[in-house]
Structures are given as C-alpha cells and as structure tokens.
C-alpha cells in the first residue's frame, strides 16, 4: 500500500517537474526539431564545437554550445559531425531542366528570338523535378535558377527553396535577375542573327535604348497623371483650366501600351535587379563592364572563365562574380582557358564571389554546388572560402542573406548535416532541413 502511494507521488512529482520544465524552457511554442553537431559552421562568427541548433517551426530559435542550450525532452534530435547552413547554389537551371533531357522537360532556352527578357522562370519551374530531390539530398536548400545562358537575353531567373509541391511554396524571389549571354555562347554563326559578337552587342544596346525610351514615356505619362491628380486635390475648379489647356492642343502624354519586354528591361535600367551576364572570354567580360557603365546598370558576372585576366577591372567596377562550376568542361571554345583556381584568385582580390552548378545541356544534367565548391576548396580557395561561397556569400550576392546563408536565430531553418568534412568525396550528407522540415535523411 505504502509502495503504491509512493509510486503515485513520484508520478505526480515527475509530471509537475515536466510541466515546469516546459514552462521555463519554452514558454510560447514547442521546439519541433533540434540539431546537435560536433562542429557547427554558423557562418556568423566562429564555428561552435559540440553545439545545438533549436528550430521553432520554420525558423531557427536558438543556438549555442550544448552546455548552454538545453534540448527539450519532447524534441526530435538529429545529430551530425558537421552542420552547415543549407547550401545555396548561386546559379543553376534546376527545376527548368528535367533530368530526362527530352524536349518536353527542357524549359531553359526558348530559341524563337534572341532577346526575351519577358520570360519568367516562375512560369516554368517544376518543384517536383527529380533533380530537385537529387540536389537537396547533397545539402542544397536554395537555388538561383531560371533561363540558361545561350541567347543574348534568355529570360528571367528566380530564387527558390528546394521544397514544396508548387512553385508558390518554393519561391523566395519570383524574379531575381535578367539572364544575358555575351560572346560565342549567344552567337549563332552563319545565316542567323546574331552572327557576330558586335552584332549581338548592337542588338542588346538597341533593345536597352528602346526600353529606356519606353520608360521615359511611362514616366512622362505618370508624371502628368500625378500633376493632374495633384491639381484635382489641391484646388477645386482647376479642372476647367486643365481641360481648356488640353483643348488648346497641349495633350497629356499617353501612357504606352504595356510591353512586358521593356518592363523587364526597365527593372534592370532602374537598378531594381541586376543583369546576370554570362561571359567567359576576357573581351566579353570587358563588353559587360562597358555596358554596365553606358547604361548605368548593376551587373553580376556569371561564368567568367577568363576573369583572372581582367580581375582588376572587375574589382574596380565593383561587380560580383558567380564563378563557373570548377569542373566545367574546358577542352575547346570560350571556356578553354578556364582555371580551377579562378575562385581562389577572385577571393584573394576581395571580389564578391559565389559558387554555382551552372547549366549543362547533356550529362551531368545538373552539377552539385557542393562538389564544385569542394574542388574550389582544394584548388586554392580553402575550406572556409569555399563554404562561404555556397552559403553566406552566395546569400549576400543574391540579396537573400536576411533569410538564409547562415545559422542565426530568426533565420530560416535551412541546414545541411554531414558525417565529415562536407567537401570530402567520401563524406555523406546525412540530412537536409528546409524551413524546419527534414526533407532528406540517409547517406547520400
């Protein structure tokens, strides 16, 4: 009898203790997930040895050394040797290039016209594509994806999380940049236009000038409308005066019909987003810098195989570079002088730089930014530089660092877990977490 009573009392005490623990540690909501890492590379300060990341729903709630951060009893815990922010692929075509590589699953290049900035990536992104799952299983959580290099302006790019069953679930930025290609990548050769570099640049400049003219018309019409409506509100009775002025032939500027192409170029011309310029040869990179000056636009250099030849000019122009995949093929053509040390050289010069998987028209249908960063790490960039280039530096370059790219309280709970150095060939990605959800587990 006595014994039974004691058990009951113990149970009550335990319950009270548990409730008070719950109240003290998590007064508002329950942690859904905790990640414990032998080393946590937060990318915001020094790595944390034997650390814990507490995830509250979709965001990181707390992190610190395991001695300082108590993991609640009811919390699911994942453990790993190495924890890093979910990897960011600064330029991919994932979601627009299907793995089968058949006409029906390829939406990266529309060949009907060389300049089509009105093509939205959003309208083609397939979040259920197999390569989305594939990249995710190596720890990639965010991609800057969209229309591929191959036309003067192939279309728009977007930023997506590798999650969700619809593009709406996935998207972070519906339009991130306008994708442009300079050099032989956009030149079509004989019988087709553009057939030369000069022609391609002339076509692009003409289009930008036309977009400027469109913008001026829109601005004039909007200014006039504002003036007119300002008059309406500031003083009654002005209507009559204005009407008479119009009647005398001084017509208000008409707003032009909406033009999606010029609207999209207008975003670049107004510096609302950069022009993403894929250029490999040094002279094509010079063209990109020249265009940026002429039109006073922001550009991001993409690929840039010969960037090391004109690195000072790139630095002086303050242009960031999404450097080509380290393992990009370089046997012949515009990439033949590519170096596996370009990322390291740009980093040494302090040029803002990020890593990418790039665009492949054949095999591998997608590269994995983790692998490309790993080779860059081994070819001079080093572990820290390579990890930054596919996490926080990529986030900054893409303008999404307020949400992703580092492990900090309040940021999106995007994490990649590895059983060793993430860049080592034989290391496995053991878990990938996006928005607090475990979307890959196992040994990949």
């Amino acid at each position, binding site marked *: 009898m006595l014994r039974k009573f004691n058990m009951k009392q113990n149970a009550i005490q335990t319950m009270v203790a548990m409730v008070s623990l719950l109240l003290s540690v998590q007064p508002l909501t329950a942690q859904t997930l905790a990640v414990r890492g032998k080393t946590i590379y937060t990318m915001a300060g020094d790595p944390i040895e034997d650390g814990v990341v507490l995830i509250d729903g979709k965001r990181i709630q707390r992190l610190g050394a395991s001695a300082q951060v108590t993991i609640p009893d009811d919390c699911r815990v994942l453990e790993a040797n190495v924890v890093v922010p979910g990897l960011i692929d600064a330029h991919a075509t994932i979601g627009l290039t*299907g*793995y*089968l*590589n*058949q006409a029906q699953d390829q939406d990266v290049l529309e060949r009907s016209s060389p300049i089509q900035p009105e093509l939205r990536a959003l309208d083609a992104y397939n979040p259920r594509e*197999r*390569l989305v799952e*594939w*990249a995710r299983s190596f720890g990639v959580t965010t991609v800057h994806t969209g229309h591929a290099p191959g036309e003067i302006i192939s279309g728009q790019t977007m930023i997506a999380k590798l999650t969700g069953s619809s593009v709406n679930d996935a998207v972070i930025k519906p339009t991130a940049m306008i994708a442009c290609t300079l050099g032989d990548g956009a030149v079509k050769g004989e019988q087709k236009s553009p057939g030369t570099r000069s022609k391609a640049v002339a076509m692009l400049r003409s289009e930008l000038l036309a977009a400027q003219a469109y913008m001026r018309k829109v601005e004039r019409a909007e200014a006039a409308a504002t003036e007119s409506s300002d008059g309406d509100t500031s003083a009654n009775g002005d209507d009559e005066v204005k009407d008479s002025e119009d009647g005398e032939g001084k017509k208000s500027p008409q707003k032009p019909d909406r033009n999606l192409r010029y609207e999209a170029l207008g975003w670049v011309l107004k510096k609302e987003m950069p022009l993403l310029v894929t250029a490999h040869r040094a002279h094509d990179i010079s063209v990109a810098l020249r265009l940026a000056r002429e039109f006073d636009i922001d550009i991001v250099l993409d690929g840039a195989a*010969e960037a*090391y*030849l004109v690195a000072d000019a790139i630095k002086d122009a303050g242009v960031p570079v999404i450097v080509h995949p380290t*393992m990009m*093929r*370089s*046997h*012949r053509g515009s990439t*033949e*002088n*590519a*170096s*596996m*040390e370009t990322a390291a050289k740009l980093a040494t010069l302090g040029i803002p730089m990020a890593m990418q998987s790039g665009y*492949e028209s*054949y*095999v*591998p*249908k*997608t*590269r*994995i930014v983790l*692998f490309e960063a*790993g*080779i860059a*790490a*081994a*070819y001079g960039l080093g572990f820290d530089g390579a990890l930054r280039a596919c996490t926080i530096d990529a986030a900054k370059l893409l303008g999404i660092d307020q949400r992703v790219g580092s492990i900090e309280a309040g940021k999106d709970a995007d994490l990649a877990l590895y059983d060793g150095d993430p*860049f*080592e*060939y*034989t*290391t*496995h990605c053991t878990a990938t977490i996006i928005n607090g959800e475990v979307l890959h587990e196992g040994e990949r």
Partner: protein
Amino acid sequence: MFGLMVAAWLAVPVGSALAGGPTVYKNARIIPIGAPQIENGVLVVRDGKIEAIGKAGEIPKPGDAEQIDLDGMTIMPGLICTHSHLGGGWGGDSSEPIQPACRIYDSINVRDSGLQKAQAGGLTTLNVMPGSGHLLSGQTIYIKLNDAKTIDGAAIRNDEGEIMGGMKMANGTNSQRQPPFPGTRAKSAALVRQRLIDAQAYQRKIEKAEAEDDSDKMPERDLALEGLVEVLTGKRVVHFHTHRHDDILTALRLSEEFGFKIVLHHISEGWKVADEIVAAKAPCSVIVIDSPGGKLEAAELLLKTGAVLEKAGALVAFHTDDPITDSRLFLRSAALAVRAGMSREKALEALTIAGAKMLELDGRIGSLAAGKDADFIVLDGDPLSVYTKVQQTFVEGKLVFDRSKSADRLFAVGGYGASDDHEPFSCCLEFGPGGPHH
C-alpha cells in the same frame, strides 16, 4: 656545344632516371594494388621497369642508384582509363552504323592538350575509343601517355609487335537515328548479328583456303570483315557501350552467341542486373556521373553502381569517357563510388589493375610489382581525398608530369593556353633526356 650538352646532362633534375641507371624512390607510402600497403616503402626502377618494391631495409638497394626521398608521399600505380576520347580522334563517320574498318589509330593527335591534362590526373594508359553514335564505331587503341611524338610511339604493342586495341560497339538509344542507322533496339541487334554472321562466313573461307593451302580460294581482303574476324577470334575485346538493363542483357546475348570477349561500358543500370552480369563473367567499366539523366538511357544512373557490382562479384573498373568527365579528376570517380558503398580496396583496383585486366595488359601494368612497367604516380595525400593532388606521373620510369613545373601545373589547374595543342618533349637542350618536357 658539346660542353653545353654535358652541362645539361648533369643538370637533370631530381626524379628523372639517368638512362640505364636505376632510381630508388624511398620514404614513400606505397599502395601496390593486389598487395598490402607498404609504409616507409621503397620502389626501385631500372630501364623503365620495376626492379624491386618493398619495405625500407627489406629489399636490396642498388649501389649505383639515384636516390629520391619522397618525404612520406604516396605512390600508387599509374591510373588506367578503359574508355577515353582524348586525342581528338573520331573513328567512324555518319555514313553507316557498323564501321569495323575505321581505326582511331588513324586520327589521334598526340599533341592534344587533353593528353597532357590526363597525365596531370595520374593517367598513364588509355583505351582511346572511336565514336560514338554507331552500333560499331571502329577499332580502339591502347596507348601509353609517354609524350611520344607520334601515335606509333604511344601505341602499346603485343608480343608479336602488333598495335593493341579493341572494338567499340554500342546499343540502346546511342546508335538509333535515321536509316541506314537502326530505329529500334530489335533492328540494332539484327544488324549486328547479320554483320557478324557475314564475318563468320568470311572467316570460314579464309580458314578453308589456308587449310587447303589454295590461294585462289582466299577471299579478297575486306577491311570491315577483317576487323570483325579479329573480334570473333578474340584478338579484339569488344568494348560495349550499354546503359539500360535490357540493353546490357542484349549485349551479353550477342557476346554469348558469337563468342566474342566483352567489356560492358557505362552500364548506368548495371545495378539492376548485377547477378546476370556476374553469371556471364562480364567485366564492367563504370562511369561515375554527378547526377542521373541527361539522356534517356542514363535516367537511372546512380553512384551505387560500382558498390552493387562489387558485392555481386563483378570485376569493376572506372573510366573517364573524357570529355564527359575530366581525366584530371579521375581519382574522384573511385572516391564517389566509395561514398556510395564500394570498398576502398576494390575502388582503387578499379582505377588500376581491373582496367588492366579489361585491356588484357595486367601482366605489364595496373599494379606495382617487380618486372612490371614503372608506371606510377606520386600523391601528396590519400588517393580518395578531394584535397590530394597528383604531384608526379611516371610512364616506364620517365617523368611525364611534374606539378612543381609551371608548364605542367598549367595542365593540372587550367588557365590561359591550357587547352592549346602542345609539342610533346623531343629535344629541348636545356633539359636533356628524361627531363621535363613541356
């Protein structure tokens, strides 16, 4: 002039054996392949061959030897790529699907920078393949990356002095296109079978004429049928590009029907028919690609193929298919296979001795043992680490790649001019024989 030459001779840099004299590479971790790893190992090279290999103090060092201290670096056999397209050659054209008369031998440019890049990746032997896109793209050639000035200097010869090579075949979607190419798998197999039956008839005529010693009965020479007869007699191994599980079985069926030696290449879906492959005793040359797909027949390509085939008991090698994967990073193929479950031992064999067996050269290359060719590489770390670099590559005792030389480093890393055709070592007074060549 003579004085200059003598000076150059004496200035031969460390790591290059004097002609005739032995060289001892000591203080190395040696991965011999087929034998346990040797700590503090010694490798003795003389006249392009391995004279001795073993632990320091356990093997005699020739007194007259040049001694090279490798300071703890790792030595392993030169890597063997069983399927490469380097050298800019093509083989068969687009005129017909079966072209056994075409020799890649006739179209290789030995100055192609890709060959120098391959040396930088630690490759010492290649099977250079013609094609692709045919049922039969032509005759392959086995070469050493020895900086020869001509293809004849690079070609590996058999005991009869004949240039060695196999025959490249393919099935699945690779060879399907407009007639006269096949449009279906069944047509593909039918075309190949008919041509091999023609070759059997041709072979019988030759044998009959020879048996009767009657030159009048000897058929007119037919280069295409001659090539196929070399397949039927086993002189040429068929290197068979095949991806899908059913295409793999079709290749095995043809091999069984006509009795030709086969090495299965690529085999993206080999993991689905591993038991059948093992039952047929077919060696597997696997490609490792970073993602599945890119073409229909590689839709089910996975990193685990090597691991699954190893567990089933198949002989597994890797290949670059360069330019599909980069020869400079060939070690990576084995490492990614280990990531997906393959054993370290078999993965390293898959870069070396397994490939040698598939090229029927395992008596000469693929492992480090006394009497074998001195084809070896010096690594600054574990062969399966991303951070490890090939520091030196030796072919038959000759240093053909040295990362410490800026001209060689250009090939290893890339940069301006790294893809230009280059003049293989020939004269270069300032270096002398056996010295750096670029």
